[in-house]
């Protein structure tokens, strides 16, 4: 259950990663005439996935890959519970993975078709294979804190030393963890969450907080100088900084989350879908994604081909892995409903 254990790279993983893409296929170009539908979150992210996973797959097997989306949980549910999903491979969040698996919406990953040994074990699930890792970080304005930046979550709650408005994701997920970490709870003692304590801590900044719902909003709030610090995704900070925004992040106590590729239950192209997922596990393909949009690979071999300038921004480097931990997907599977209700009530109070 504890997600803070780290596994070193298996020697076997190195050997497996050296296998060429088509080694596990029954032979190249054998999927001609098959159409596989790949659904993800749209925008630059999906473009990167298209170039890095879908195109190599299509080239090697002769299959046609069609892009669809944007990923929408309600739509996914409706589709998967009907038994004839339109999507064959879908990029979903780790949080939803656990819920979807429990609700019987996913196909089991076929280890004969997907080279699971390439992927770090902590990112492998019975019903999905981790494709990227991202994290919730403490983001802050570099102009507001030119001398002495906030580094730990406790700093986020210190309105005296680091005055100004905060931004927090409009959900209990990660926000409650942040509050507890700020209150001094160690990462390996976090779960099950002491919810009362977390909300009490959050009350300290509630009056100064703007809640964000979309990623673009989180960026916009910093760009517009509406907030000076907050909980924000690492990829968003990277993106904003690249575009010239005066924003930076801290890796201390970063809370990591994983996106998985899954196959909805009842997919007509199950085997082809699995092989597309296999393409995703290849180190070079993962490196491509990282180089394009700074999301972290789940295959550590990818670091061999990732540009060095990106490393400070990636979660799965040894340094940042050490400083952070992976959020408990199982805890949230069981408590998301109740805690979302409580979050709503807390906001209204």
């Amino acid at each position, binding site marked *: 259950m504890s997600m803070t254990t780290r596994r070193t790279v298996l020697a076997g993983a190195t050997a497996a990663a050296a296998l060429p893409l088509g080694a596990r296929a029954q032979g190249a170009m054998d999927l001609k005439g098959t159409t596989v539908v790949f659904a993800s979150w749209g925008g630059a992210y999906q473009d990167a996935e298209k170039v890095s996973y879908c195109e190599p797959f299509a080239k090697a097997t002769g299959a046609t890959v069609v892009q669809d989306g944007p990923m*929408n*949980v*309600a739509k996914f*549910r409706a589709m998967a*519970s009907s038994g004839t999903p339109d999507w064959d491979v879908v990029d979903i969040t780790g949080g939803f993975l656990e*819920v979807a698996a429990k*609700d019987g919406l996913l196909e089991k990953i076929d280890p004969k078709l997907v080279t699971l040994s390439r992927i770090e074990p902590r990112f492998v699930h019975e019903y999905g294979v981790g494709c990227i890792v991202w994290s919730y970080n403490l983001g802050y304005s570099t102009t507001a804190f030119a001398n002495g930046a906030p580094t730990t979550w406790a700093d986020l709650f210190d309105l005296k030393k680091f005055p100004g408005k905060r931004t927090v994701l*409009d959900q209990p997920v990660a926000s409650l963890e942040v509050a507890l970490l700020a209150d001094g709870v160690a990462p390996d003692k976090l779960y099950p969450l002491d919810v009362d304590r977390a909300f009490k801590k959050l009350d300290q900044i*509630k009056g100064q*907080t*703007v*809640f964000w*719902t*979309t990623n673009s*909003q989180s960026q*916009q709030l910093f760009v*517009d*100088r*509406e907030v000076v610090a907050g909980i924000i995704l690492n990829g968003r900070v990277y993106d904003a900084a690249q575009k010239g925004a005066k924003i930076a992040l801290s890796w201390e106590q970063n809370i990591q989350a994983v996106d998985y590729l899954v196959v909805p239950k009842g997919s007509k192209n199950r085997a082809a879908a699995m092989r597309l997922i296999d393409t995703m596990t290849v180190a070079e393909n993962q490196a491509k994604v990282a180089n394009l949009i700074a999301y972290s690979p789940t295959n550590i071999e990818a670091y061999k081909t990732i540009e060095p300038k990106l490393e400070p921004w990636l979660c799965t480097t040894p340094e940042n892995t050490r400083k952070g931990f992976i959020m408990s997907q199982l805890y949230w599977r069981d408590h*998301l*409903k109740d805690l*979302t*209700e*409580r979050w*709503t*009530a807390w*906001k*209204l109070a």
Partner: protein
Amino acid sequence: MRAVDGRVWLILPAVSLLAVAFLVPVGWLLSRAFTFPEPGLQNFALLWERPVYMRVMMNTLVISAIVTPVTVLLAFPVAHLMAHGSARLRRWLIFLVLVPFWTSLLVRAFATAILLQRHGVINSFLIGFGLIEEPLPLLYNMTGLLAGCVQVLLPFVIFPLYSSMARIDPGYMRAAATLGAPPVRAFLRVYLPLTLPGLVTGATLVFISTLGYYIIPALLGGARQQMIAQLIQDQIAAFGNWGVAGALSLVLLAITGAMVALLHVTVGLKEIAR
């Protein structure tokens, strides 16, 4: 007085389409309130037990109740000028009202946020002219939400209201003046009642539309401006709980129906309708 005539059949196409493409699918989904995950009333019991749902429902009603009169008040002078100004002026006003409408709601909401920010145009203007010292909190609160909703919903009141006003025979107002009524009295007792159909239609549209909003509260409102549509969405999307979503929707429907009936009865069409 005519008996039921052939014109009744004119309602058939709309009603048929509605029945097939809306009532049946939605009715089925809403019926899940009573059948998901098991038959019974447990979903409604849940709403009763967990106060947060009804509190958000109340919050939504209050927000709609604030947005509606503000929108109507701002719409009135515009519709009035449209109806009684020159044809050219009317054109420009229609232009003014419809053209922003063509710009995507999402983008306009972000643009409104940009204007209302602490370092945005409005605050910079006010501070620059020395009218205030500290920036006003215009965003991520009720003010921001109000600005967003009103902006989007103004046309929904302006057009029905204009439609009513344009049909008012000026003879009525002249008669009132001839009979010695002071302008304000004539306005309140003669003009205003004649605009009621349009006014009530507009007000109803605004009220109902606001109830279902979630994008604007998410982008422009604050923690206290939570609305029911987001909760319904969460139930379906995050939890797959069609039962609770259906139950919430039915409650929303019932309350909406009651409010609209109340509106029509008090402000009423009775004197205009046959």
